[in-house]
C-alpha cells in the first residue's frame, strides 16, 4: 500500500484546460502544456478513495462521487471532473485525472470507453516503468552500502595492531575475523613502562562507518589514557568521559582493559561490560569477573578492578561475543561452556595453536555453509612455563588440504634442526612427519579443510617427540596390511598403503593412540644412540 500511496501522492491534476492526460509516474515536467502545470494532489495512504479507485470498474465521475475523502475535495477544487484509475494486476498504480471538456459538455460514453481503453493499455507500461525505477534505486542503495562497508572495513583494519608484542617468557596470539557486514570488534596491545603490557579487547555496538569511527576514537583515547594513568579502572573511566558527549545515539562500546606485570605474572583488569576473560592454569579453567557499564552510555561511571596471578603455564583468553553467540543449525549458541571445554583441552598449547583449535571447534559447531554472524576476535596471552619444562619447540596446525604435509615439513624442519637432528635422521623424521600428517588429513579428517591437523614438537630428555593429531571422531584408523611389493607388482594388492610402513621404518618409536575425537600419531627420534645405520 505504501507504494501506491507514494505514486498517488505524485498524481498531477489538470486544471481547466483541455482534457489532457496526466501521467502518474511522478515527473510533472513530463506533462504536456507546461504553462499550466498544476500542483500534485496529495493522497494520504489511509484515504478511502484509494480502495474505491482500486475496485472501480472504469472512469469515475468526481462530481457525483460521495465519499468522506480529503483527496476527493482536493481533486474537486483543482477542477478534476473525471478520474480513470490505472490498475494492473489488481494493483492501483496511478490515476488519469481529467478536467472539464473544452466544450463544457459532459464526457460521453465514447469518451469514457476511449479513456478506459487507453488506461488499460497504459497501466502495465507505467508499472514496468515504475519497477525499473525501483530496481535502479535498489541497486544504487546496495552499491552505496557495499561502499560503506568497504570504508568501515578499511578504518577498522587500520586500527588493529599490525604485529603482536614479542615479550620474553610470554607468547601472544590474536585472531580477528570480520563478518561480512563488519561488526565493531577491536583489540590492541599497549607497551607500558616498568615491564608492563597493556591489552584491550572491545566491541562497538552497531556496524558500518559510524561504528568504525567510534572504535578508532575509543582506541586512541584508551592508548593516550593508558600512558598517563596506572589503574585500569581509572583508564576506562577516562575513556568513558571522553566518549559520552560525542558518541552517536544508541551506540556504546564494551571494552576490557588489563595490565600484566611481565616479571611476576600479576594481572589487573577492569571491564566495561565486555565478555569475561578465561584463564586455563594447572588443568583448570576459571572465568575472571569484573563489573562495569559499557563505555559511552552515562557519565561518571566507575569500573571495578580485578587482580589475578598468571602462574607459569597459565593461558589467558580474551574474546568477543561473536565467539560465544555463534549459532548452530538448531539456533543453539556456542556459549561459554563450550569455550571453556576447548580451553580445558587445549589451554596448555601455544597461543596460535589454541586459537586454531578454538576456530576449528567453532567451525565444526556452526551450521555448514552459514555466513559468519558477527566479528570474531580471540586474543590469547600465555605465560611460558619456563626452563626445564616440556615446552613445545614447535606447535602449529595445518588445514586438511592435499599437499599441506609440505607446509608441515617446512614449519617443523627448523625446530628439528635447532634441537640437534641432522643428516639422514633429520630426513627420516621429515618423511615420517609428512606421512603422519597425510594420514591425519586424509583418513582422520577426510580432507575437510576446516579440520586442522595439530603438530607439536617436544623435547623430553634426549628424545624428540612429534605428535600429529587429527579430528577423526571415534573412526578407527585403517589398519593397512604390511605392504608387499611382490603382491603389488602382481596387481594383487593396491599400489598404495605405504604411509604407516614408511613411518615405522623412519623413526625410533611409533605410537598411535586415540580418543572419541582425535587420533594422535606419536613419532620419537632419539638425539643420541639412535639407530642410524641399523638398516643398511
Amino acid at each position: 500500500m505504501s507504494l501506491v500511496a507514494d505514486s498517488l501522492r505524485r498524481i498531477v491534476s489538470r486544471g481547466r484546460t483541455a482534457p489532457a492526460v496526466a501521467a502518474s509516474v511522478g515527473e510533472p515536467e513530463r506533462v504536456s502544456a507546461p504553462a499550466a502545470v498544476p500542483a500534485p494532489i496529495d493522497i494520504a495512504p489511509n484515504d478511502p478513495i484509494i480502495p474505491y479507485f482500486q475496485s472501480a470498474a472504469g472512469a469515475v465521475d468526481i462530481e457525483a462521487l460521495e465519499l468522506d475523502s480529503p483527496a476527493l475535495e482536493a481533486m474537486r477544487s483543482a477542477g478534476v471532473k473525471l478520474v480513470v484509475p490505472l490498475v494492473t494486476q489488481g494493483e492501483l498504480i496511478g490515476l488519469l485525472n481529467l478536467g472539464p471538456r473544452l466544450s463544457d459538455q459532459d464526457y460521453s460514453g465514447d469518451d469514457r470507453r476511449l479513456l478506459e481503453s487507453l488506461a488499460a493499455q497504459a497501466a502495465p507500461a507505467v508499472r514496468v516503468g515504475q519497477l525499473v525505477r525501483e530496481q535502479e534505486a535498489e541497486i544504487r542503495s546496495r552499491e552505496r552500502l557495499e561502499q560503506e562497508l568497504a570504508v568501515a572495513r578499511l578504518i577498522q583494519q587500520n586500527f588493529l595492531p599490525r604485529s603482536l608484542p614479542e615479550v620474553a617468557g610470554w607468547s601472544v596470539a590474536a585472531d580477528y575475523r570480520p563478518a561480512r557486514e563488519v561488526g565493531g570488534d577491536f583489540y590492541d596491545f599497549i607497551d607500558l613502562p616498568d615491564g608492563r603490557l597493556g591489552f584491550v579487547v572491545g566491541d562497538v555496538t552497531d556496524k558500518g562507518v559510524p561504528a568504525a569511527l567510534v572504535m578508532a576514537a575509543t582506541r586512541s583515547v584508551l592508548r593516550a589514557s593508558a600512558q598517563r594513568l596506572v589503574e585500569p579502572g581509572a583508564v576506562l573511566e577516562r575513556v568513558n568521559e571522553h566518549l559520552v558527549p560525542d558518541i552517536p545515539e544508541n551506540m556504546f562500546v564494551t571494552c576490557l582493559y588489563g595490565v600484566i606485570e611481565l616479571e611476576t605474572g600479576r594481572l589487573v583488569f577492569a571491564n566495561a561490560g565486555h565478555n569475561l576473560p578465561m584463564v586455563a592454569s594447572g588443568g583448570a579453567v576459571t572465568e575472571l569477573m569484573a563489573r562495569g557499564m559499557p563505555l559511552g552510555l552515562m557519565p561518571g561511571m566507575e569500573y571495578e578492578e580485578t587482580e589475578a596471578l598468571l602462574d607459569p603455564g597459565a593461558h589467558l583468553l580474551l574474546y568477543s561475543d561473536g565467539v560465544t553467540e555463534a549459532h548452530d543449525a538448531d539456533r543453539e549458541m556456542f556459549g561459554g561452556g563450550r569455550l571453556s571445554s576447548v580451553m580445558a583441552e587445549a589451554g596448555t598449547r601455544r597461543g596460535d595453536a589454541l586459537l586454531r583449535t578454538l576456530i576449528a571447534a567453532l567451525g565444526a559447531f556452526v551450521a555448514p555453509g552459514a555466513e559468519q554472524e558477527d566479528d570474531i576476535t580471540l586474543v590469547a596471552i600465555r605465560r611460558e612455563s619456563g626452563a626445564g619444562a616440556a615446552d613445545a619447540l614447535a606447535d602449529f596446525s595445518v588445514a586438511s588440504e592435499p599437499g599441506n604435509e609440505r607446509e608441515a615439513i617446512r614449519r617443523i624442519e627448523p625446530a628439528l634442526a635447532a634441537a640437534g637432528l641432522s643428516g639422514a635422521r633429520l630426513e627420516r623424521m621429515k618423511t615420517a612427519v609428512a606421512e603422519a600428517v597425510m594420514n591425519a588429513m586424509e583418513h582422520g579428517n577426510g580432507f575437510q579443510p576446516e579440520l586442522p591437523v595439530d603438530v607439536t614438537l617436544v623435547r623430553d630428555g634426549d628424545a624428540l617427540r612429534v605428535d600429529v593429531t587429527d579430528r577423526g571422531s571415534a573412526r578407527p584408523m585403517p589398519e593397512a596390511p604390511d605392504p608387499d611389493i611382490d603382491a603389488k607388482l602382481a596387481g594383487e594388492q593396491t599400489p598404495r598403503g605405504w604411509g604407516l610402513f614408511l613411518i615405522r621404518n623412519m623413526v625410533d618409536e611409533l605410537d598411535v593412540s586415540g580418543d572419541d575425537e582425535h587420533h594422535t600419531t606419536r613419532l620419537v627420534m632419539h638425539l643420541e644412540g639412535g639407530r642410524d645405520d641399523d638398516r643398511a
Partner: protein
Amino acid sequence: MTTALEVKVDVLDGTATLLLAGDVDREGGAALDRAYSEAAAAGAVSLILDFAAVPYINSTGIALIVGLLGRARAAAVPVTARGLTDHYREIFEITRLSDFMTIEAGAPAPEGSTR
C-alpha cells in the same frame, strides 16, 4: 613451495629416459602415466627414471612408481632409477623397490636440481 611434476622423455637407442622434475606425489600420476605411454609408443626396451630434479617423494608417489614398475615388468622392460638422494635411496630399499629396479649410485646433483 610445491612444484607440480613434469616429465620429459628422451629416447635413445631403445632406452627411454624419463627426466622427472618436481614433486612425486599424488598430483604427479597423470604426468608419469603420459611419459610412460610416450616411452612405450616410442618402442623403448628399457627405462631410466631420473630423479635428479625431484625434491620430494611421498608414499602416494611411491605408489605411482610401483604402478609404473608393474607396467614395465608386464612388458618385460627393465627399469633403472638414477639421481636419487641418499634418503630416497634408503626409502627405495626399505620398500624393496630396489629389488625390482637397478639403483644407480647417486651422482652429484646436476644443474637445475632443486636440491
